């Protein structure tokens, strides 16, 4: 019993023997890792190493691509989300996901973009919606910029603003986890810096897992870092240790820029 209590507070995810495939190509091999609650965990590695797939296995998005397959276990709050009686729709609701390119819904207003998750869940109370939309837009620092044009289309914003809008959209359904797939790769440096600050802030209330190809970014924003190479977890530990005293030769080579 004591053990279980510990599990719940320290670890949000426990990944056990996770394998993933695209068709016949195996992209993840026997991944085992534990992801801590209310910390930022970065997943780094050269492109094609499976880092995005690992992230997408955490909320069962991987299986939505054609020909994709998964085996193994991912415990979320102590429940294996790949259990047969678990509904992936309800699992995804507890995790917000941010994608490489901002993907607001272009046919909806800014307001509706943030409110959509709540509306799907049957929230119709206008006052409640108003207050949550405002709170989420404030959290991502967009409220002051857009409060007078909440009815404008989501795509009328700049790229950085769009990405923050997407984060607000994810926050509105009150998730426990934010999964980010290279959230700044399509943005200019100033917008990227704003997002990075936001990530640090989010870690106070949420578990954040971020995939990035930018090692400086991993070093700046994360508490823990996992290094993935050819579908295998090579090294995983506190960010400071990974960047300053890597135990594995491969990690060191990657960090110092000899390949990748």
């Amino acid at each position, binding site marked *: 019993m004591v053990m279980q209590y510990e599990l719940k507070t320290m670890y949000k995810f426990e990944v056990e023997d996770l394998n993933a495939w695209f068709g016949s190509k195996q992209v993840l091999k026997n991944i085992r890792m534990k992801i801590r609650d209310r910390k930022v965990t970065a997943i780094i590695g050269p492109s094609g190493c499976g880092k995005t797939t690992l992230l997408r296995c955490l909320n069962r998005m991987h299986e*939505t691509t*054609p020909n994709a397959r998964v085996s193994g276990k991912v415990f979320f709050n102590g429940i294996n989300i790949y259990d047969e009686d678990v509904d992936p*729709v309800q699992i995804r609701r507890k995790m*917000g996901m941010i*994608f490489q*390119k901002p993907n607001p819904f272009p*046919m909806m207003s800014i307001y509706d973009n943030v409110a959509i998750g709540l509306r*799907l869940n049957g929230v119709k109370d206008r006052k409640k919606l108003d207050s949550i939309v405002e709170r989420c837009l404030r959290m991502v620092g967009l409220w002051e910029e857009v409060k007078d044009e909440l009815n404008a289309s989501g*795509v009328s914003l700049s790229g950085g603003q769009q990405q923050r809008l997407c984060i607000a959209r994810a926050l509105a*359904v009150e998730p426990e986890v934010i999964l980010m797939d290279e959230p700044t790769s399509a943005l200019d440096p100033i917008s990227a810096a704003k997002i990075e600050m936001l990530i640090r802030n989010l870690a106070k209330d949420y578990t954040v897992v971020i995939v990035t190809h930018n090692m400086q970014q991993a070093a700046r924003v994360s508490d823990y870092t996992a290094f993935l190479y050819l579908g295998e977890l090579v090294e995983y530990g506190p960010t400071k240790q990974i960047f300053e005293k890597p135990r594995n030769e491969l990690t060191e080579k990657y960090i110092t820029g000899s390949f990748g």
Partner: protein
Amino acid sequence: MALKKYYFHKILNGEFKGDDMFKLVSNFFALSILLITGLMVYELVKGSWLSIQRFGPWFIVGTVWDPVFTQTFSTLPLILGTLTTSLIALAIGVPISIGVGLLLSEYAPKRFAWLVSFLVELLAAIPSVIYGLWGIFILIPFLRHNAYPFIQSALGFLPLFSGPIYGGGVLTAGIVLAIMIIPIVSSVSRDVFTAVPRSQREAVISLGATKWETCKIVMSYARSGIIGAIILGLGRAIGETMAVTMVIGNKFKILPSSLFDAWYTMAAIIANEFTEATYDLYVSALIEVGLVLLMVSLIVNILARLLIWRMMKFVRGVVQE
């Protein structure tokens, strides 16, 4: 003009080569399409000139078609008949087509989708006249003996569904047209659904949406494309000739007594009476019906193409972002 000058210059200098010749030839053929379209409008106006002069705008709003005694012609009931049968076709055919489009783009596995789109395209390949044949000998007896009495016993209190049942008639024509527009509407909606970027689906799936809620996002993204598909289907239904002629009953009347009653459409009257038209004004009036049909379907088609084009451009714009 500039082009002409360019070639003239080249010819003078002996620089006119095979490439220029080829370009000129292919330009000529491409222009011939525009020429043909223009000529079509001109010929139809010329052919209906007698009728236009005689009846003027009354041709569109009048309700008399009497080739035997008074030799007067006007087409409002035909226009109404065309619109009514087409709208019935849309009401029945569009939900089915959008369902098939969603199935092909969102639900069905790829291999299965290939088979389904082959079957649906087969439906498009069946000649109109075979729909008519099937309509006369298979569908009409079924409707007369089974479906229509049942509908009448349930909804007979409405004037739309009261009155004698012949089997053929307005509703029958609408049903046949619905079947005939399913291939075009479903394949265009499949195309516009698959054009919706994956990132849109992922965004809403990751928010915890069910499959159907994901489909709703896809449909709202593709709405102008869907409208385009529907209007394209409308265009087909408006111009459909033989199948309708064979099942609608071909009676010129201002309004039918119910949906089970016989009526007429613009296309049907041309097919049914053209070879029997014995004097010039009669032929000219039928050609003018064709002209009206041409104008209506030009407008409908241009509208549909613009909508689909806008939707595809919209997709490209968002994806490049």
